[in-house]
């Protein structure tokens, strides 16, 4: 039985000492006064007023410079931001329009690989060539999907048990997950599910070489998650792959190559954090994802948004692809469930949380 009184007593005993408090307040007041006087000074005001102008100037210079070359914001092979009207129009017109754009993107990849042989992958022979695994028509269809598909509870319920049974054939593992100590992220749902899957996969008898947890949505690094993963798995067989999709185009993924030497010199947490700052190059990702398991979180955006391209690009490199999201049926996954591209996996975590998970096996990679 929980001894709440003991904790109450413990909390009672945590108090700030008077002398420490006095010093804290006096230091803070001093700092406050300094800040205040600085803010009132003419230089400070002038600097603050100049910042927006400077920012605009930098942007103008940046766009002018990048507009000349093949890279940068002025030339984007894949149209990432599309309005509903555009998407609807694409639906009506078919998918031919999107495919060439993606082919153009792949050419960019090829060009980059050729231009930078040092960054090429040594074990590329065992990796399905990225350029041939282009999403093609399938992804083009996906990009044409517009709007929000309503929640399909019946789909979820019908497939619930089947999916549990078929999850790597290890129903027991999922049962264990229900009682496992899960990581909770800021909204408390997708992170739990993704982490539990990571854990489940890592604890399987037949282990994948590595497990990747792709998290792309937030604007900040989920430091807690990074820390958690490292604590759980240490240096062994665990690399987390993060990318912030909201703030980058796909081409910028290819801008930076992190060499293995650099990576090895970093701690696991640094590796994780680094990936949001220095984007993995296409080649680097290629090297990492061979015959392993990838776990996507926030499936609706993965499949329906700009990261959908990434999904189709890289999922052929994995034996299994899992897509994890919290208790709602995301917009763009439904067609994939219906056409059998993905299988559905979901289960009820407890009375408070509902998680659904999805995974699709990749027919192109056989064990």
């Amino acid at each position, binding site marked *: *039985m*929980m*001894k*709440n009184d*003991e*904790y*109450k*007593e*413990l*909390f009672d*005993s*945590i*108090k*700030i*000492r008077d002398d*420490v*408090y006095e010093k*804290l*307040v006096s*230091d*803070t*007041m001093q*700092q*406050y006064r300094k*800040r205040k006087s600085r803010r009132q000074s003419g230089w400070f005001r002038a600097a603050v007023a100049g910042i927006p102008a400077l920012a605009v100037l930098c942007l103008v210079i940046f766009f002018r410079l990048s507009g000349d070359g093949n890279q940068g914001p002025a030339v984007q092979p894949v149209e990432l931001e599309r309005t509903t009207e555009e998407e609807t129009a694409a639906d009506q017109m078919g998918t031919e329009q999107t495919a060439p754009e993606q082919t153009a993107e792949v050419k960019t990849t090829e060009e980059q690989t050729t231009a930078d042989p040092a960054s090429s992958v040594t074990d590329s022979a065992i990796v399905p060539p990225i350029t041939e695994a282009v999403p093609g028509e399938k992804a083009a269809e996906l990009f044409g999907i517009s709007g929000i598909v309503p929640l399909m509870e019946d789909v979820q319920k019908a497939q619930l048990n089947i999916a549990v049974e078929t999850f790597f054939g290890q129903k027991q593992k999922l049962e264990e997950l229900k009682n496992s*100590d*899960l*990581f*909770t992220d*800021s*909204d*408390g*749902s997708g992170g*739990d599910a993704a982490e539990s899957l990571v854990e489940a996969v890592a604890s399987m008898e037949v282990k994948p070489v590595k497990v990747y947890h792709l998290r792309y949505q937030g604007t*900040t*690094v989920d*430091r*807690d998650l990074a820390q*958690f993963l490292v604590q759980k798995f240490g240096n062994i067989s665990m690399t987390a792959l993060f990318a912030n999709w909201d703030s980058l185009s796909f081409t910028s993924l290819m801008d930076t190559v992190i060499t293995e030497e650099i990576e090895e010199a970093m*701690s696991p*947490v*640094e590796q994780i*954090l680094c990936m949001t700052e220095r984007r993995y190059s296409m080649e680097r990702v290629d090297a990492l994802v061979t015959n392993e398991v990838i776990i996507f979180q926030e499936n609706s955006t993965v499949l329906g948004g700009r990261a959908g391209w990434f999904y189709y690009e890289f999922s052929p490199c994995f034996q299994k692809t899992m897509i994890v999201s919290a208790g709602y049926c995301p917009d763009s996954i439904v067609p994939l469930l219906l056409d059998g591209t993905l299988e559905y996996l979901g289960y009820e975590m*407890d009375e*408070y*949380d509902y998680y659904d998970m999805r995974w699709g096996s990749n027919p192109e990679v056989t064990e």
Partner: protein
Amino acid sequence: MEQQYVLILYERYRDLLYRICCIYMKNEQDALDAMQNTLLKLLERVPPFEDEEHARRWLIRVAVNECKSTLSHWWRQHLDIEECTLMQEDLTEEYMRKQALLDSLLSLPPKQRMVFYLHHYEGYSTGEIAAILSRRETTVRSDLRRAKQRLRVTVDEV
């Protein structure tokens, strides 16, 4: 006048804020830094509080955010900081027991220990905690349940 009001308000909640920061940051020095930043924010903004409870929640929220923001700095990763200990010199059995309880509490993930503290000590309901921390109530409940489960094990061991 305004400053005086701020200082009175801060004084009133000094232990509350200290506990929150200690529990979140796990060491006194960082806790004091977070407290200081909280006071600075209060001085600089002095939001128009509707009532006492509003002010209290605002302070909790700001303190938690300050802690989170400190923890999210990249350089924090490289620090090896000693965890919080109770300020008592004689190592009595009672002290050792309390320290063990504190250790078990600090071994929880930050969100869980914060939820546990706000619920069991400050008396907030899960709904209120969700509002203060801007999280979903279901998540708060899950955190609370998990915290209890873990603490139950450790407390029984103590």
